[in-house]
């Protein structure tokens, strides 16, 4: 009996100690798993950050780049919701429900699988998976992936959120939406509608406040967090708090050509691009800035000033989150990923939104953002965009901008930093990376498997490739020479494999047919090599067909760019000897001002 009792005690002791051991092990594992801070800028250009050659003051992200690694070949989609669908699911947008932007679905895409215009049920978000696997999941900022109760962040895996559900609107508390159909931009907090924004609301500030608040309120249980900071800066309307309005006063009076040249020189210095890089020419329909009056340059430069202030303000706010994480001792255990969601905005979205007099859009504009005088822009109640010429500066050295599958629409800066990321301060120019890679990377870092089903429904597998080996310094790229990437939006499409890219763009910015580029030699996509390498073109077209089939792409029978050919003048190349009167560019700007003042 005594022996039995002793054995029982021993067994009990073993069970208890084993359980304790298991618990300790789990807790130790929990402690080891990193926090993930995913920061997304909205419509920010490839070369705007100081660490990518921009003249905009971004000390926080520049510093992040010295702690982590910058990548020069990181790809997103040409527009925001499309990118976000891939960012949060790791699969192609045509699978995830954003085959097209919900607002712009073509008639033949309506109701088709993959074109729901919201995240569909075929995918699961990284937030849902992390939440189910011991992570706190927070989101602050822009969602743009669905408005219905079962489509909002709270329903798609975020336990805490403060979200702008739509694509954009006023950055201040007057909260107008870009679209007249929903005049007031809908926000949710923890899944419930926000009735009224705070009086001092400014997007970047409040998204930062909320992120810090969520982390603070959830940190006592020791669980790691996944925080998705989806800033709406510097998406139009270009607006910034009054104190920041004149931070870049007169910085851009020189005009876009000079600023772009200087950017390019800094990018060469930093090694972001190769010396003597074949950068894109100024788009043919844009005037050279030296041909504009100093006054017009000041007026146009003001828009870029406000854009730059928005970028710096966002950088400053990101700094607040970093400071907070350092204060609570979590910074060292946090993987930070910073990206932009697409190329800089060069389209005249304001005109599209405001429509023609007599339209509902125009009525909405009258009520919400009619004021746009020189000294007003950037403030509440105004709506300025900085236009195609400055967007090209933001996308130096690439061609075109947001909305197009040229490099200017789909190349984004990428900085990754945090525990385990090897090569502080380095620049990785070898890796060809895609926004779809972020989900598998985060899941691997968090030791979470992507399931084949979720909540009883089958979910699409991730298409991206994890970067973990690359981050740990074991490889230079998750992709080999035969791996390839594909894009399609609004009927514009592209395939990249290795250094080769084919793209088919609407006229007149493209030819409406496939063009072939070698991005290693020609990142500006200036020389169509279709005639020289028909074999390569054919190979890539075959990949496109595979991409189209695999992802269920339906080319829309309507497109926002279908009238681009009529809206823009014929592309007439600018020759060195025409127009014959040249040389005005040689006059220094100060001298020119002096002349104009006489």
């Amino acid at each position, binding site marked *: 009996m005594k022996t039995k009792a002793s054995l029982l005690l021993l067994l009990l002791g073993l069970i208890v100690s084993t359980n304790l051991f298991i618990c300790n092990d789990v807790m130790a594992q929990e402690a080891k798993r990193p926090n993930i801070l995913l920061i997304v800028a909205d419509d920010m250009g490839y070369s705007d950050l100081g660490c990518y050659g921009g003249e905009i003051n971004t000390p926080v992200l520049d510093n992040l780049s010295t702690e982590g690694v910058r990548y020069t070949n990181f790809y997103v989609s040409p527009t925001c919701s499309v990118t976000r669908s891939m960012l949060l699911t790791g699969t192609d947008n045509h699978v995830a429900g954003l085959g097209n932007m919900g607002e712009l679905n073509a008639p033949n895409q309506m109701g088709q699988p993959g074109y729901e215009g919201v995240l569909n049920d075929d995918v699961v978000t990284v937030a849902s998976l992390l939440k189910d696997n011991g992570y706190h999941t927070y989101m602050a900022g822009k969602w743009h992936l669905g408005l219905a109760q079962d489509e909002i962040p709270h329903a798609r895996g975020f336990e805490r959120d403060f979200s702008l559900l739509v694509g954009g609107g006023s950055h201040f508390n007057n909260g107008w939406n870009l679209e007249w159909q929903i005049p007031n931009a809908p926000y949710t907090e923890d899944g419930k509608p926000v009735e009224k924004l705070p009086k001092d609301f400014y997007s970047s500030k409040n998204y930062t406040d909320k992120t810090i608040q969520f982390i603070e309120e959830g940190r006592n249980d020791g669980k790691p967090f996944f925080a998705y900071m989806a800033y709406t800066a510097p998406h139009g309307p270009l607006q910034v708090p009054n104190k920041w309005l*004149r931070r870049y*006063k*007169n910085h851009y*009076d020189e005009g876009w050509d000079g600023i772009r040249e200087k950017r390019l020189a800094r990018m060469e210095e930093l090694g972001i691009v190769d010396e003597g890089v074949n950068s894109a020419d100024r788009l043919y*329909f*844009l*005037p050279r800035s030296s041909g*504009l*009056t*100093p*006054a*017009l340059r*000041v*007026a*146009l430069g*003001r*828009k870029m000033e406000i854009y730059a202030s928005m970028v710096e303000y966002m950088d400053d706010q990101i700094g607040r989150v970093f400071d907070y994480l350092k204060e609570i001792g979590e910074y060292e255990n946090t993987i930070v990923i910073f990206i932009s969601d697409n190329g800089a905005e*060069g*389209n*005249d979205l304001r*005109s599209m939104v405001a429509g023609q007099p007599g339209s509902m859009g125009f009525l909405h504009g009258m009520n919400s953002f009619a*004021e*746009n*005088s*020189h*000294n*007003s822009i950037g*403030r509440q109640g105004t709506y300025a*965009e900085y*236009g*195609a*010429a400055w967007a090209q500066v933001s996308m130096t050295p690439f061609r075109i901008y947001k909305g197009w599958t040229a490099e200017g629409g789909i190349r984004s800066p990428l900085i990754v930093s945090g525990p385990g990321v090897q090569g502080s301060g380095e620049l990785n120019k070898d890796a060809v990376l895609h926004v779809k890679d972020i989900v598998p990377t985060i899941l691997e870092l968090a030791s979470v498997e992507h399931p084949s089903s979720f909540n009883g429904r089958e979910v699409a597998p991730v298409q991206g490739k994890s970067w973990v080996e690359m981050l740990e310094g074991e490889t230079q790229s998750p992709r080999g020479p035969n791996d390839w990437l594909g894009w399609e939006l609004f009927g514009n499409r592209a395939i990249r494999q290795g250094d080769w890219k084919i793209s088919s763009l609407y006229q007149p910015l493209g030819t409406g047919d496939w063009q072939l580029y070698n991005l290693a030699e020609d990142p500006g996509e200036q020389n169509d090599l279709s005639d020289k390498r028909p074999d390569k073109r054919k190979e890539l077209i075959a990949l496109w067909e595979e991409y189209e089939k695999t992802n269920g792409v339906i080319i829309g029978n309507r497109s926002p760019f279908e009238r681009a050919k009529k*809206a*823009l*003048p014929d592309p007439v190349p600018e020759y060195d000897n025409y127009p014959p009167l040249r040389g005005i560019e040689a006059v220094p700007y100060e001298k020119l*001002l002096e002349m*104009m*003042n006489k």
Partner: protein
Amino acid sequence: MKTKVMDIKSISRSKWLPLYFAIVTTIFSFNMPAVAQDDGARSYWKGRSGTNVMSFQYLPINIGASDSKAFAPGQYIYPNSDVNANVFVGTYSRHMTIFNRASALTVNVIGGSVGATMNASIGSDSLLLPPGIGPGASFSQSSNGFADPNIQLAVNLIGTSKLKSTVDLLNYEPKVTLDIALLVAVPIGKYDNEKMVNLGLNRWYGRIALPFKYHFGVFSPGYMWSFELVPSVYIFAENSDFLGRKLENEPLWSIESHLTCDFTTNFFGSLDVLYQNGFKSKIDGTEVGENIEIGTIGFTLNYSVSDNITLRTSYNSNVFGDDNLETSSIRLQFVYAWNKPSQNAKKLQHGH
């Protein structure tokens, strides 16, 4: 000052072309030295160098004195008197740059008629009786013609550097400004040494003012607010032939204030306050009467009909200061302003 900059669309060259000519800067400015009045709201707002402003004003003025004296300026008003004046002021102003500061030179030509009915019951002060009028008698006098013209130079000291080009105007967002304004009146107006009532003063006088402004809100048409304060002092030379005697006056201190606000891009209003004190007189070395003390409150409405034409009206009446004085005046003003580069830009844009 009003600055209009057409917005830029970025889609097509056809939209760009007009923009080469699109910066149209139109400036209106008022720079009116006082004529028994304040300078007026936004008088010291600076325009683009080279801008010309012509203005015509009509001011019906009424002054009623029971037991006090008033100033109009340099006029000595009897107790128990009524003065009615119809004054016309023609002004030419040119905005310029002096020492790299925004400045304005203004010339005022003043004319009209003034009539006064006075009671000489003050009696004991025989020094003030015109020839042929005995103590206790009532009499009327009038005058018409031109008053003393004056010229004023206003130069900014703080807050407004040169406004030579459209670039300067685009960059101009004043917060606090301080000017200095020097006015001199030339004694060539109509003067009769046997009359109490004259349009000319028969003496030099001048004024030093330090106009100060604080701008609220956005410096953009439709959103401008300003608080303006113009402390000034008038200084008078002696009139050696005032009814055959020598008239001297102490300085007249003045402070003028306006709170202005844009109602629309073309329309602003102002609440106006003016306080004046001083001007004690001496005749042949003997002090006569007390300091004049006038405090008026009024309002101004200003409407820009076009880029070149503005209409303005204002009304004021004394509500503090000397209780025995009643003054009221109305201002009706027509302003035409032009600036050569702006006019040329318009011509070019419209294909003239």
